[in-house]
């Protein structure tokens, strides 16, 4: 196992940890809006770390950039979706 | 190939040009297509066309055998008849650039035609699946063309049930590929052997196709769908669309899995057909509305189309084979396509003139619309299987096959069916022939061209007997019709009248007396009760959960029957 592999293992493990944290948050947090935090923040970081971990394994800079593009797109989608869901919640239950 | 593509190109062109041009393009395409089909039929069967030059199993072959050519020719004629008939009803109103119903109708008519041609000639099971879906997608909007809640519901029921059918068919197809590594019909025909996977595949494909054909008891969607559509659309749906999946059953049984299907499974198939004939005919007799009556008549006639399967079994080889029975089935189908299209057209004309189609209130129609009533009568005669109709020749062929294989009970079913058919035809005619004091004033003028188109199709159905007689060299009609044939025809009509008098819901005046006289009240009451029970059973069978359970149960029944062979 060389250095790059070690890096991959470390980053992917860290990513997996945040997926775990996100899911635990979903399980434990009390209402929709707090769960939304768990979803957007922890899982996006998890995905980011997975991407980071896979960077040394792709061929060429462009291949790595492609992965980053995917992460950014997922980030944008997640950010937009979380805001939309939050607004939907806020509208249906203004007091929440 | 041209015969398949021409309607599609026409449909695309009609779509692009839109408006009034859609109709013009459609009629031009119909004429051109008829020419192409006729030329193909003239050059004879046995054509094989490799699409893209790729041979199966990798490529797809089109095969225009005799069966396919006969069906294509018949369909082209019916499409022409319906097209002429619909010219008046589906015309873009003056002053409008484009109207919804005509635009949709003409495009879908062409699409249905193209899909049917494809079903007839395609030699590849998956292409056939796509063709079937094309057919469904084109047929469903026709059902809901008038946009009322009830027709929308019928269309949705039809669509979902048909989708279940196609999924079953696809499942069987893909299992077949998993075993034999090809989807080509000819290659499969040479390779298949009876084993559990193949049996599962055949059962699934058969039942899926039966659901799309609406063979009893899988007919939940047909009566309201066919009765609710505009008349020209009903003619298309009833005369043509169901023949697509029916034809595919033939392909699957005769060409793909001839060595796998067994006698018990064929008996089961025909048994369902017999049940369809008995139940649906009685229920038809009980209808208050003419279009529903004709729709139930279609359910019954579908039953006829499946009687040939056990008769086609070669007793010696214990294998299904082409022969007289298959020819008879084909004739039966063509005869029904023409006659039923004509009947729906006639019913539609009566509806248009009266503003309703209640059978009990048809009095005076015969005087107001003599041609229409004549059409109905002729189509009825054709459906009953009286000489010289195509159905008569078909019946002869069935009787021969039944006689040689000792399956006398199918003769009984055929005769009973003829009697029952006669009963409602007579009933409707009796209502229509009743004189009224004041002549009926049609609500809107009945287009003469439409009447003629319907009449032409009805006559075609009758004349089919002569054509078939000549083409097959049966020599059953010319000069061979004896007094006893005439006598039996009279018997059928009289028997039909008696049955009508016993079972019908409303009797016209001329029957009122006869009914009381001939049977007496208790008998009539019993008959009405029996009829009511049939109708009730039909209502239960057509409930969604029951019908879908029946679909699965039928699949198991076929699986068992296939294994039992």
């Amino acid at each position: 196992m060389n250095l790059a592999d070690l890096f991959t293992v470390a980053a992917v493990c860290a990513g997996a940890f945040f997926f775990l944290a996100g899911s635990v948050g979903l399980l434990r947090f009390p209402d929709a809006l707090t769960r939304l935090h768990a979803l957007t923040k922890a899982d996006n970081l998890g995905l980011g770390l997975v991407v980071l971990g896979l960077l040394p394994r792709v061929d060429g800079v462009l291949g790595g950039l492609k992965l980053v593009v995917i992460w950014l797109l997922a980030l944008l989608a997640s950010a937009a979706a979380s805001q939309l869901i939050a607004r939907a919640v806020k509208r249906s239950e203004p007091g929440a | 190939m041209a015969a398949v593509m021409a309607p599609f190109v026409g449909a695309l062109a009609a779509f692009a040009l839109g408006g009034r041009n859609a109709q013009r393009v459609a009629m031009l395409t119909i004429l051109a297509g008829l020419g192409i089909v006729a030329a193909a039929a003239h050059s004879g069967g046995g054509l094989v066309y490799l699409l893209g030059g790729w041979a199966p199993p990798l490529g797809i072959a089109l095969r225009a055998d005799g069966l396919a050519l006969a069906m294509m020719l018949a369909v082209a004629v019916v499409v022409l008849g319906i097209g002429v008939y619909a010219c008046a009803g589906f015309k873009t109103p003056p002053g409008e650039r484009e109207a919804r119903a005509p635009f949709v109708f003409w495009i879908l008519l062409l699409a249905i035609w193209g899909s049917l041609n494809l079903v007839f000639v395609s030699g590849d099971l998956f292409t056939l699946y796509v063709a079937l879906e094309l057919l469904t997608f084109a047929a469903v909007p026709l059902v809901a063309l008038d946009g009322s809640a009830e027709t929308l519901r019928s269309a949705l029921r039809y669509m979902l049930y048909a989708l279940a059918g196609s999924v079953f068919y696809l499942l069987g197809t893909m299992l077949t590929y998993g075993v034999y590594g090809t989807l080509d019909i000819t290659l499969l025909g040479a390779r298949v052997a009876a084993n559990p996977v193949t049996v599962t595949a055949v059962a699934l494909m058969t039942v899926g196709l039966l659901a799309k054909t609406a063979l009893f008891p899988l007919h939940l969607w047909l009566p309201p769908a066919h009765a609710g559509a505009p008349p020209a659309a009903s003619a298309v749906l009833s005369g043509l669309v169901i023949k697509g999946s029916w034809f595919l059953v033939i392909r699957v049984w005769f060409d793909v899995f001839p060595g796998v299907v067994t006698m018990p499974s064929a008996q089961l198939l025909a048994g369902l057909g017999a049940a369809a004939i008995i139940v649906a005919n009685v229920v038809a007799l009980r209808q208050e509305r003419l279009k529903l009556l004709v729709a139930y008549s279609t359910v019954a006639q579908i039953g006829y189309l499946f009687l040939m399967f056990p008769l086609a079994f070669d007793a010696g080889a214990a294998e299904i084979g082409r022969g007289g029975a298959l020819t008879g089935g084909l004739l039966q189908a063509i005869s029904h396509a023409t006659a039923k299209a004509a009947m729906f057209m006639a019913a539609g004309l009566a509806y248009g003139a009266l503003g309703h189609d209640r059978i009990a209130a048809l009095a005076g129609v015969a005087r107001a619309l003599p041609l229409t009533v004549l059409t109905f009568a002729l189509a009825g005669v054709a459906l009953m299987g009286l000489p010289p109709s195509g159905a008569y020749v078909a019946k002869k062929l069935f009787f021969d096959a039944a006689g040689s294989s000792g399956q006398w009970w199918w003769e009984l079913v055929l005769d009973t069916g003829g009697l029952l058919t006669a009963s409602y035809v007579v009933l409707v005619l009796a209502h229509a022939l009743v004189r009224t004091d004041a002549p009926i004033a049609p609500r809107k003028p009945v287009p003469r061209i439409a009447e003629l188109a319907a009449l032409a199709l009805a006559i075609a159905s009758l004349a089919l007997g002569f054509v078939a007689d000549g083409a097959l060299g049966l020599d059953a009609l010319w000069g061979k019709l004896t007094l006893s044939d005439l006598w039996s025809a009279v018997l059928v009509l009289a028997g039909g009248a008696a049955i009508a008098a016993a079972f019908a819901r409303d009797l016209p005046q001329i029957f009122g007396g006869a009914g009381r006289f001939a049977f007496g009240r208790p008998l009539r009451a019993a008959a009405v009760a029996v009829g009511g029970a049939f109708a009730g059973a039909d209502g239960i069978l057509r409930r969604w959960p029951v019908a879908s359970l029946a679909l699965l149960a039928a699949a198991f029944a076929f699986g068992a029957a296939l294994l039992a062979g």
Partner: protein
Amino acid sequence: MTRDGNEGPTIGAALTRFLGFAALWGVLIRSGQPGDLAVGALTAAAATWASLRLLPPATGQVRFAVLAARSPRFLWQSILAGIDVARRALAPRMPLAAGFVAYRTGLPRGQARNTFATITSVLPGTVPVADDDTGMVYHCLDTGQPVTAQLAADERAYGKALVPGRAHG
């Protein structure tokens, strides 16, 4: 990004966006074949056209160079956000004091504020839930934290990259 002249913004923005889309194409296709490049140029042109229609340059611009310069801060904050959630989720007592916080922003409604909202939705403890003329409303995991100060700091940091324009009509 050029800002001079009347057509300047449009042409400049078009050029920038075209280059951006072309770069995206390059990243995706990873090939220098002439055919691939030609299709890429065509696609980038089409995408630029769509982009200019949907997002007129007059409604605000994003200085990508500035944003790129802020990316370490952004990444670090994302990590903090993840750790923050993980800490709260995994802690036995689950320290939560969730609630809404109103935030008055100097960014006008429109593209600039949308971009800011999108960025902050990934930052620790905040999810924007509403946005109107009076300001923005955030939902926070812990209202005990100095959320408003934090957001103000973020606005100073990222705001330089966001050139406000007129609001969308």
